[in-house]
C-alpha cells in the first residue's frame, strides 16, 4: 500500500528520512517496493506582491500588473478579476514549470510583454476547479519565498508491501502504531480530541440477520450535506496514495480507509427505501447494479446490505449504484461495520471483484475500530462541507462479541524456539509494546491480544514478534551438531535418475524441459480420439489458454514441438530427451489422477552427425539405433508394433517389455502424422514401397538384443540408404520409468568371467524371407541356456538380400561363440555343436547353410 511519509510523520514523529524508514521497515518484514517523490508539480513559483494594476491597452478582459519578488520587478499580463494592489500572489517566473506541463516564457500577449504568470489554485494543482481566480497568499509571507516550499507540498510516497498476516498495517495509523511500538515512540491518534457534535436524528434502524458474518454494524445519519469537491490537501493526499478524488463524501470514506484502515460506505439516505437497513444473506438470483457499472448476480453465500427493495450494497465489497452519493445528495447514511474475512473473500472471489474495501475485510479488520472510524469520517464530513453538515447519533449494533484472545507464554517459549538467550526483562519489554495489557504470571506472562492483532494466536507468534523487534541479526547462526536422521528406503532412485540423465547426455541427447500443458488439437494430432481425450485425460478447470487445456499424457507432444522449432531454426541433427510426469485419469475408485514419470526422446537427422566427412558417420538414424539407446537402459525384450493411435509407424516400431509387461515403445513417427505436424516428409509412393523413409517395410524386425551380447546387426541398414528423406525421418522412444528406477539401483552380483579361451564359428545361412530374427534367437537362446551345450554367445553379424539368392530367401551370417568353463574347448566339440545347431535350425525353420 502507498504510504505518505509526511502523513505517517503526523502519527509517529520518528524523524527518520524516507530512506532510513525504508531500512527500518525492511527489518520489520515490510518490504518497500518503490519510493516515489511527490513534488508539488511546479517549480520556480515564488511569492510576489502586486505593485500596480493597469488595464491592458489591447484587451478588455486582461490587465497589466507590475509585481515584485523582492529582487526585481516584472510586468505580467493577467486575466483574473480578484487581484488588488498590495496582495501577495504566486508568481511563476520565466522558466517556471506548472503541473500541467506548461513552461513559462518571456512572451508578448496582445502586444504587451509578460515576464511570468500569476497563478490560480488550479494552475498550481491545489484545487480541482478554478473558482476563486488568482490564489492569494498570506500577507506575512516574505517576498521571493518559494511557494512549493511554503505550502509544504513535497512528500515521499513509499509503496509498502504488507504481508497478508498484517492487515492492521494497511493504513497510515496502523503502520505508525507498528513503528511506534518498535521504536518506543509515542503514537498520535487522529481520534485524539475528536469531539463530534452529535445532533439531530438517530440513525436509520439496522437489523443484522447474519450475525455470524456481521457481528457489528455502526450506522450514522448525516444531514444537510453539501456534496462538492474536496479541499486540495485532502485530494492531494488521496492522489498520492493512488485514489482518484470524487467528491467530499466519497473522498472522506477513502481518506479514513487509508488513514485508519477501516473501510466505510456512504449511502444517499434518501434513496434507501425504509423502514430499516438489513444485513442479510442474498437470496438466490437477486441482482445488484454495482458502482463498477456491472450487474452482479447474487447467491445465498453473498452477504448484502439491503433495504425494503432489495440489496443496496455487497457487504464489505462494493456499493450499489442506485443508492450512491451524488451531487444531489443531501442526507448521507454512513456505514462502518465488521464483516468476517472468509465470508467477504468467498463472495469477492466468486463475483470476481477486488476493491480496497474487500482487500482489507478479507484480511481482517479491527472490530473495535468500526465505531471510531465512523465517528472520524462523520467529523471530517461535517468539517469539510460548507455550511457544515449535521451528524446524527450513531446506532451501534454489536450483536456478537468474541472473547478476547489471550496467550500464555514464558521465556522458554521464546528463547527455546529462537535459540537465543534474551533476558525475561528484555522479552517483557518487547511484548509489552505489542500487548500493553500484559500481566505477569508464575510461568511467564498472560497476554490479552489487542483486537487489531489478528495474527497473534500462539507463543510462536510472540517469538516472532520478539525476534522482529530485536532484529533477526540478533539470532545466532552457529548450528549445533544435529542428530542423524533415519535412513529411508528408495534413496537410490534419485541417484539412478541422475545417472540415467547423464547417460543420455553422453549418448548425444540434450535434455529438454517442457510445460505439462497440451491442447486438444495437439492430442488429436497425436492420434488421441475425442472419446479417449474426454474419458481418460486430465483437463484443467482454469487453463491459462486453450493451448494449455490438458495435462500431457505423453512427452511426445512437447518434444515434437521442440523438434519443429529446432528444424525451423536451422538445426538439422536433433536429439532431445526429457524426463517428466505424464497424467491420466485413474480408474473409478483409485486415485483420481495417475501420474507417472516418463523418459522420452526424439531424434532426427544423422547419427552421430548429419554432416561428417567420414560417410559412415554421416548416416541417418535408424530403428536399430533406437533399440540400442533403449537397450542401454536395461536389457529389454522387444515386440513388433507399438502405438495403437497411429502416431508411430505401423511396421517400423516396437514395444519394450520388461519382465513380460510393456513399459515403453520406440519407432519411426508415422509419415502421415509427421505431415500433420508440418514436417516435410518424402512423398509416399503408395503400395507400401518405400514410403517409410526408405526402410523396406517387408523386412521383419523384432527382438534385437541378447543379454550379455550387443545387437550389432543393422539389418535394414543397407536398405536405408542415406538421403534427404531419411534425414527427415523422425524417431521417438518413450519409457515409463517408475517401476524401472528400482531396477537400476538393484544390487548386482558378480558372475564368473570365463578364463579359458573361446572358439567362434561364422555361419552363413539361407533363411526364408518371412522369418523374424526373434524366432531364431529364441531357439538359439534355448541352446545357450542348456548347460550341456558349449554355445555361450550368438551374434547376427550380417543380413543381406539380393539377386544372388534364391527367391523368397534372405541371407544371415551368425557368429557363434563356444567355450567350456572347466577346460579349453576342442575343435571337435565345436564342430559337433555346430552340426547340432544347424540340424535344429533346419528342422524348425528350414534354414540351411549357404553354398
Amino acid at each position, binding site marked *: 500500500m502507498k504510504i505518505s511519509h509526511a502523513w505517517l510523520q503526523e502519527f509517529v514523529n520518528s524523524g527518520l528520512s524516507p530512506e532510513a524508514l525504508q531500512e527500518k521497515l525492511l527489518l520489520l518484514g515490510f518490504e518497500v517496493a518503490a519510493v516515489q517523490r511527490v513534488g508539488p508539480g511546479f517549480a520556480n513559483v515564488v511569492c510576489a506582491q502586486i505593485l500596480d494594476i493597469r488595464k491592458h491597452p489591447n484587451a478588455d478582459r486582461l490587465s497589466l500588473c507590475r509585481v515584485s519578488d523582492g529582487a526585481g520587478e516584472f510586468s505580467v499580463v493577467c486575466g483574473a478579476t480578484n487581484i488588488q494592489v498590495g496582495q501577495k500572489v504566486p508568481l511563476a517566473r520565466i522558466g517556471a514549470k506548472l503541473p500541467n506541463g506548461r513552461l513559462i516564457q518571456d512572451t508578448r500577449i496582445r502586444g504587451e510583454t509578460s515576464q511570468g504568470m500569476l497563478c490560480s489554485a488550479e494552475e498550481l494543482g491545489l484545487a480541482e476547479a478554478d473558482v476563486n481566480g488568482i490564489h492569494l497568499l498570506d500577507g506575512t509571507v516574505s517576498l521571493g519565498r518559494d511557494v512549493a516550499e511554503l505550502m509544504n507540498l513535497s512528500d515521499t510516497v513509499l509503496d509498502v508491501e504488507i504481508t497478508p498476516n498484517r492487515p492492521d498495517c494497511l493504513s497510515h495509523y496502523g503502520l505508525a502504531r507498528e513503528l511506534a511500538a518498535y521504536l518506543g515512540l509515542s503514537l498520535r491518534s487522529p481520534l485524539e480530541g475528536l469531539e463530534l457534535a452529535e445532533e439531530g436524528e438517530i440513525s436509520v434502524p439496522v437489523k443484522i440477520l447474519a450475525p455470524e458474518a456481521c457481528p457489528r454494524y455502526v450506522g450514522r445519519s448525516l444531514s444537510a450535506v453539501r456534496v462538492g469537491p474536496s479541499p486540495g490537501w485532502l485530494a492531494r493526499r488521496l492522489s498520492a496514495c493512488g485514489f482518484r478524488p470524487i467528491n467530499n463524501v466519497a473522498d472522506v470514506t477513502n481518506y479514513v480507509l487509508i488513514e485508519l484502515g477501516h473501510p466505510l460506505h456512504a449511502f444517499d439516505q434518501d434513496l434507501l427505501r425504509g423502514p430499516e437497513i438489513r444485513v442479510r444473506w442474498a437470496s438466490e438470483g437477486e441482482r445488484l447494479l454495482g458502482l463498477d457499472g456491472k450487474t452482479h448476480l447474487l447467491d445465498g453465500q453473498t452477504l448484502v446490505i439491503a433495504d425494503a427493495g432489495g440489496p443496496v450494497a455487497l457487504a464489505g465489497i462494493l456499493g450499489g449504484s442506485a443508492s450512491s452519493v451524488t451531487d444531489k445528495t443531501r442526507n448521507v447514511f454512513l456505514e462502518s461495520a465488521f464483516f468476517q474475512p472468509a465470508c467477504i473473500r468467498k463472495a469477492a472471489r466468486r463475483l470476481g471483484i477486488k476493491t480496497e474495501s474487500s482487500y482489507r475485510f478479507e484480511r481482517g479488520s479491527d472490530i473495535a475500530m468500526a465505531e471510531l472510524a465512523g465517528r472520524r469520517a462523520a467529523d471530517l464530513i461535517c468539517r469539510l462541507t460548507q455550511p457544515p453538515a449535521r451528524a446524527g447519533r450513531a446506532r451501534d449494533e454489536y450483536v456478537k462479541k468474541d472473547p478476547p484472545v489471550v496467550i500464555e507464554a514464558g521465556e522458554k517459549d521464546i528463547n527455546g524456539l529462537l535459540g537465543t538467550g534474551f533476558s525475561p526483562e528484555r522479552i517483557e519489554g518487547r511484548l509489552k509494546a505489542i500487548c500493553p495489557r500484559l500481566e505477569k504470571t508464575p510461568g511467564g506472562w498472560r497476554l490479552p491480544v489487542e483486537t487489531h492483532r489478528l495474527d497473534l494466536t500462539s507463543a510462536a507468534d510472540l517469538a516472532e514478534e520478539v525476534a522482529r523487534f530485536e532484529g*533477526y541479526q540478533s539470532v545466532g547462526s552457529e548450528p549445533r551438531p544435529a542428530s542423524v536422521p533415519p535412513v529411508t528406503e528408495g534413496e537410490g532412485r*534419485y541417484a539412478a535418475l541422475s545417472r540415467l540423465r547423464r547417460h543420455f547426455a*553422453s549418448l548425444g541427447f540434450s535434455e529438454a524441459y517442457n510445460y505439462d500443458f497440451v491442447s486438444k488439437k495437439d492430442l488429436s494430432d497425436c492420434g488421441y480420439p475425442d472419446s479417449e481425450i474426454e474419458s481418460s485425460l486430465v483437463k484443467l478447470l482454469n487453463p491459462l489458454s486453450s493451448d494449455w487445456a490438458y495435462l500431457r499424457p505423453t512427452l511426445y507432444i512437447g518434444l515434437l514441438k521442440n523438434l519443429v*522449432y529446432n528444424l525451423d531454426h536451422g538445426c538439422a541433427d536433433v536429439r532431445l530427451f526429457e524426463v517428466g510426469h505424464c497424467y491420466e485419469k485413474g480408474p473409478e475408485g483409485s486415485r483420481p489422477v495417475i501420474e507417472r514419470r516418463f523418459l522420452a526422446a526424439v531424434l532426427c537427422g544423422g547419427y552421430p552427425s548429419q554432416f561428417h566427412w567420414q560417410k559412415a558417420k554421416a548416416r541417418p538414424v535408424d530403428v536399430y539405433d533406437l533399440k540400442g539407446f533403449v537397450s542401454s537402459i536395461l536389457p529389454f525384450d522387444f515386440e513388433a508394433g507399438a502405438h495403437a493411435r497411429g502416431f508411430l509407424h505401423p511396421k517400423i516400431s516396437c514395444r519394450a517389455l520388461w519382465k513380460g509387461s510393456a513399459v515403453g515403445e520406440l519407432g519411426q513417427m508415422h509419415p502421415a502424422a509427421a505431415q500433420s505436424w508440418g514436417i516435410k516428409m518424402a512423398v509416399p509412393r503408395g503400395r507400401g514401397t518405400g514410403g517409410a523413409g526408405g526402410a523396406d517395410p517387408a523386412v521383419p524386425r523384432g527382438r534385437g538384443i541378447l543379454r550379455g551380447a550387443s545387437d550389432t546387426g543393422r539389418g535394414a541398414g543397407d536398405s536405408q540408404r542415406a538421403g534427404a528423406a531419411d534425414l527427415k525421418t523422425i524417431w521417438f522412444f518413450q519409457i515409463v520409468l517408475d517401476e524401472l528406477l528400482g531396477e537400476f539401483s538393484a544390487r548386482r552380483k558378480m558372475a564368473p568371467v570365463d578364463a579359458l579361451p573361446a572358439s567362434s564359428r561364422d555361419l552363413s545361412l539361407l533363411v526364408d524371407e518371412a522369418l523374424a530374427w526373434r524366432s531364431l534367437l529364441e531357439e538359439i537362446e534355448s541352446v545357450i541356456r542348456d548347460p550341456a551345450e558349449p554355445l555361450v554367445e550368438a551374434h547376427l553379424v550380417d543380413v543381406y538380400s539380393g539377386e544372388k539368392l534364391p527367391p523368397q530367401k534372405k541371407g544371415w551370417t551368425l557368429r557363434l561363440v563356444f567355450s567350456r568353463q572347466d577346460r579349453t574347448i576342442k575343435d571337435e566339440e565345436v564342430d559337433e555343436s555346430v552340426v547340432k545347431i544347424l540340424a535344429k535350425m533346419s528342422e524348425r525353420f528350414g534354414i540351411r547353410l549357404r553354398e
Partner: protein
Amino acid sequence: MPGDTKVWEEKWTALQESCLPAVEAAADLDSLENLRIKYLGRKGVLTELLAALKDLPVADRRRLGPLGNDLRSRLEALLEARKRGLFKAAVDQDLAGVKADMSLPATPHGTGTLHPLTQTMEELTAVLNRLGFQTEEGPLVETDYYNFEALNIPPEHPARDMHDTFYVGKDGLLLRTHTSPVQIRKMLNSAPPVRIVVPGRVFRHEAVDASHSAVFHQIEGLYVDRDVTMVDLKGTLLHFARAMFGSRTQARFKPSYFPFTEPSVEVDVQCLLCGGGGCGVCKQSGWLEMLGAGMVHPNVFRAVGYDPSAWKGFAFGIGVDRVAMLRYEITDIRLLYQNDLRFLTQF
C-alpha cells in the same frame, strides 16, 4: 680324441670371426632371421657346435664350454640389438609415408547436455544431501489438503492469493503450487526426526513473461527434531548459500510471512553480479531475494500428528529457475522451456 678338440677349436674360431660381422651386416629383418636360424636354429651352426662339446674329453669340455656359451650370448645380444634397430628403421620408413590431417573435425560423440535446471537442481540437492537431508519427492497433482489446509492455509485464507492455482478437479484436486505438500506427506508417513530435501516442479497460474513462468522448480528443505531452533535454521541456510554461491557469500535474514512457518524468514544474498555494489539485477539494492524459510508452525505439526511441544523444526524453499538464471546469467525465463538446441548445448 685330441683331434676333435682341435677341430672344434678351429670351427669356433672361424665361427667367431664370421658370424658376428654377418649379423652386423644384415640389411633387413628377413635376412636377420635367416642368420638367426643359420646360427642358432635347431640345426644351426653354433647350436651344433655347442652340442658337439659333449663328445670332447672332460677337461677340454670344461675349458671350451664357457667359450662356446660366451659366443652364443654375444650372438644373441647382437641379434636382438640388430632386430630392434632394423625394426625401428622399418617402422620409421613406413611412418614416413603416412599422411594424416590431425586438424580434420572430430566425430561428435557425447554432445548432449543436461538441462541447466537439472544441473542446478542436482547441485543444490547434493549440498543438502551432504548435510544429511534425504531426497524425497511427491506427486505434482495434489489435493487442496496437502497443498494448503495441512500447511495452515485454510479455505478463504488470504495467503491463497499468493498461490494462483491451477485446478484439475472439482474435489480440490490441483497442481501443487509449491513443494511444501511433500513435508506433510513425509511427516504423516514417518515419525520424527525428519530431515528431507524435496526437489521438484511446481505450478502457478500466472501469465508467462520474461520473469514469470507458469511452470517452475523449487527445492524444499525440512528438518524436525527435538530442540531445533532458529539458530539452526540460520546456520544451515548460511551454509547452503555459501555452498551455492561461494564461501564469502553474505546473507541477510529478514522477517517475512508464510502461513506454515512462525517465525518466518526471507533470506537475501549479496548480489552475485555486482557483489553488493548495486546493479540492474538487484535493482540497485545490492541484495537478491533467495530463500523463504521459517520455524515450522505448530498448526502444521498438529495436522500431521506431531506434538508441537515436543518437536521443533525448520523449513525452507528456494526457486531453482531463479538460481539457474543468476548462475548462468539467463535473461529470460522462457528460454528454459523453449528447448532451443543453440541454448541447451551451452551448458
